[in-house]
């Protein structure tokens, strides 16, 4: 590209030899990164947590956290050398030349100001217009990012909007100063898959209308493949590979790229099979016609509730849900936030009472159980939670966490329990050396492994997994999913798997149920449901799985 540089306009973003170091760290978080985004081009910056991709993005707009220092390199936006500009000049770059779409929309809008005001402020920071004109532009922006009744919406506060809506507001803010470059930093993390797709589509539309260049930071190679013309792969602070999206996907050079590619759930449609490296014990695979181990029959759950404005209401969380799960297989419940899938899981795990209906585990009906009657069943059903950062006691060692269920059930002596913990840790792929560590010293993936080891310690035949991988990076997700598949093959455990993401579900489940507004709208074998979805909502979920745009230019 150097040959055409004289004739072409300057790149929208040029990063060369950039080094960033955090105070107290013994090495740079970003080490000599070179990156170019041409005008109108979408470039995806892909890497896992800690790869330095977000640090790089913040360095470009000079909003690094206190304690981070750019030690070497240059950044230019169009012709402006970003790193040497005064704070005053830098203000025109922020918002005016570079628009930022931040990571977590739920905390990225000021909670005490109306969204209209926050948009107006962004408009007026870069355009010399009076208040009324700015308000007009802000309402127009709201309409462009997909709000109906912009003049009503503008008076709403962030907490009155859903996560997806808030991200639309933030996209509006990012475009308010008519930037040449959009910096989208994991713009869809924490959003439902269907909302993710809508948000990314919204960005695409605006970018195409205006010819804005995009640097899309993401940990999901699937998203990168679908949205970008070029992909830059970052690992451990360095760019390990970059190139045309289609080429990079079809012929990855670096082993890390290959690993990311294998991990992306959207690029790997088949169900995972147990890895062969692990010796298979004598437990045989379950017969396909096994009797149902878990039976959920016309289960409903409603809550009496007082709304924040003081009115009484009834929440119908789950309505008339029925399904069965054969022993040793995986049934996945899929749906967006508010669909009732988590409440259903909590009823099966006896953390929640059913208002009506029957749940049977093995031969035991568990719906009528109270108090002490529940205790024996707890050995049969264990639950794994979404967030491994808050489901482990931060003051306890791994040893104590994993041994707790054993202790509670008075299984073995102290020495035997310690031996079992080491065995369990080995089984979930953790080295014995973690036994004395505390959760804060472990990564997210390691913590979820500890949670799995704890749940498995008393060998429950049924495991309820509530979004067990959605808080994890895709590469770590893949490892944990593989572990779950391996454990199921070894131990014959039955899984009830809760997820919002069909791409994950198709990797692990034999059968799937799709929930919406408290009802089970569709259920069947995973392959069949994916191939011939009956319900419109199922089709929307399938559509939301990112697909690589094979070599399509801008």
């Amino acid at each position: 590209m150097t040959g055409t540089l004289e004739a072409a306009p300057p790149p929208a973003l040029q990063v060369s030899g950039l080094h960033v170091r955090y105070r107290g760290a013994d090495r740079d978080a970003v080490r000599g990164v070179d990156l170019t985004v041409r005008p109108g081009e979408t470039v995806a910056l892909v890497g896992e947590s800690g790869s330095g991709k977000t640090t790089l993005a913040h360095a470009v707009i000079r909003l690094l956290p206190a304690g981070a220092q750019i030690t070497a390199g240059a950044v230019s936006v169009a012709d402006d050398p970003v790193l040497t500009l005064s704070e005053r000049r830098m203000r025109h770059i922020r918002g005016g030349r570079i628009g930022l779409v931040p990571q977590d929309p739920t905390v990225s809008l000021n909670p005490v100001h109306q969204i209209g005001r926050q948009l107006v402020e962004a408009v007026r920071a870069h355009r010399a217009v009076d208040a009324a004109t700015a308000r007009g532009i802000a309402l127009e922006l709201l309409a462009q990012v997909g709000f109906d009744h912009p003049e009503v919406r503008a008076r709403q506060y962030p907490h009155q909007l859903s996560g997806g809506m808030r991200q639309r507001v933030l996209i509006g803010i990012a475009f308010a100063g008519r930037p040449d470059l959009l910096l989208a930093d994991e713009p869809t993390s924490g959003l439902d898959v269907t909302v993710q797709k809508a948000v990314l589509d919204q960005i695409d539309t605006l970018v195409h209308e205006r010819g804005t260049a995009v640097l899309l930071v993401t940990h999901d190679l699937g998203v990168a493949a679908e949205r970008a013309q070029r992909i830059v792969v970052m690992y451990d602070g360095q760019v390990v590979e970059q190139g045309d999206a289609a080429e990079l996907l079809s012929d990855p050079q670096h082993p890390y790229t290959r690993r990311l590619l294998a991990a992306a759930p959207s690029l790997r449609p088949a169900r995972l099979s147990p890895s062969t490296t692990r010796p298979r014990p004598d437990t045989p695979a379950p017969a396909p016609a096994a009797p149902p181990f878990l039976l959920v029959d016309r289960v409903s759950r409603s809550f009496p509730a007082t709304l924040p404005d003081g009115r009484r209401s009834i929440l119908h969380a789950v309505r008339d849900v029925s399904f069965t799960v054969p022993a040793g297989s995986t049934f996945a419940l899929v749906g967006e936030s508010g669909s009732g899938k988590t409440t259903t899981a909590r009823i099966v795990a006896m953390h929640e009472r059913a208002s009506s209906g029957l749940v049977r585990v093995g031969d035991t009906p568990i719906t009528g159980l109270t108090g002490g009657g529940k205790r024996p069943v707890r050995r049969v059903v264990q639950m794994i939670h979404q967030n491994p950062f808050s489901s482990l006691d931060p003051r306890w060692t791994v040893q104590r966490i994993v041994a707790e269920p054993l202790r509670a059930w008075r299984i073995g002596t102290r020495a035997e329990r310690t031996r079992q913990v080491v065995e369990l840790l080995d089984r979930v792929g953790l080295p014995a050396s973690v036994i004395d560590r505390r959760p804060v010293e472990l990564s997210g993936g390691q913590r979820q492994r500890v949670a799995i080891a704890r749940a498995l310690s008393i060998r429950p035949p049924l495991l309820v997994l509530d979004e067990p991988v959605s808080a994890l990076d895709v590469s770590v997700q893949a490892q944990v999913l593989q572990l779950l598949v391996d454990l199921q093959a070894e131990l014959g455990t039955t899984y009830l798997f809760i997820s919002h993401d069909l791409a994950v579900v198709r990797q692990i489940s034999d059968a799937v149920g799709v929930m919406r507004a408290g009802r089970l709208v569709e259920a069947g074998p995973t392959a069949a449901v994916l191939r011939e979805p009956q319900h419109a909502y199922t089709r929307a979920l399938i559509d939301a799985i990112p697909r690589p745009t094979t070599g399509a230019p801008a």
Partner: protein
Amino acid sequence: MTAIETALLAGPDETVEVSPRGRRTLTRYLLGRIGQGVFVLWAAFTLTFALLYLLPSDPVSIMLNIGDSGSFADPEQAAALRAEYGFDRPVIVQYWQQLTGVLQLDLGESIRTGRAVTAEVLAALPPTLVLAGSALLLAVILGVGVAFLAAYTQRDGLRRALLMFPPLGVSLPTFWIGLMLLQIFSFELGWVPAVGNAGLSTLVLPMVTLAIPTAAAIAQVLARSLFSVSRQPYVQTAHAKGLPRTRVYGHHVLRNAALPVLTVLGTSVGGLLAGSVVTETVFSRPGLGRLTQTSVGAQDIPVVQGIVLFSAVVFVVVNLVVDLLYPVLDPRISVHDGSRRSV
């Protein structure tokens, strides 16, 4: 578990069906809060009554000893006084009489001066209001100023220097600050008179003395709040819009950080009243503090009781106002449940 907790625990994973029944209004909330306030006042009255009743002192002998110390009172005269004031009746009757008196704003008469307690308190009020009001204003300006500057500045040295003041101000005793100010500005420099209540020149030192602890408390709470808010993602959004630093801090950070300060302000009113006792004594100013000090010294029980009740009223009213201000500052707080909704 309350219904609202259930609704919060149930989280967003639900569908909602609304039945339009029983809308709690602001009026109803206010009536409830005023009811609570009345209860607090009743409790304060009852507690002081019980405490003073249990104290080993006899108001009648105090009355008779005024003027001619050492002389023993005539037992008949004492009995007559006892009957006049009702001290000879059973305690429950005394309690009931005093309570009905309070309800009619009749707090009895001062043992020391013989004037009505309400008149004594009202007479002492204006100078204290001027002092406490100006001290509060100064405290807010100083406290907010120091905290905001410490958060706003990008020079580490200045920030560290500014942040040294609040812990110092909180830990220095009021009387010591007052004496030091007197020593320096009245006796050494002779800029302002040391005592009295003669306009602005005599107000300055007591005002500063009284303001410093409150200012320090405000600065401590606000600085911490400002630092934590300035690390919030929405502040990054504000920076990324290209707003000037003054606007980011003045418009986005300060407003969000102000809430804990409001709570401090509510409680600091009590501190100001307590501080006025020391301050007015040190600077020989008339006022509620001085009245408290004299009345306690003279065991003038009706006046002490009147001051306690008055302070309780001030406390209840100020905290009600603070609670009503929360939803104005933060739209996520509704007066109906008084708590911040999950975000």
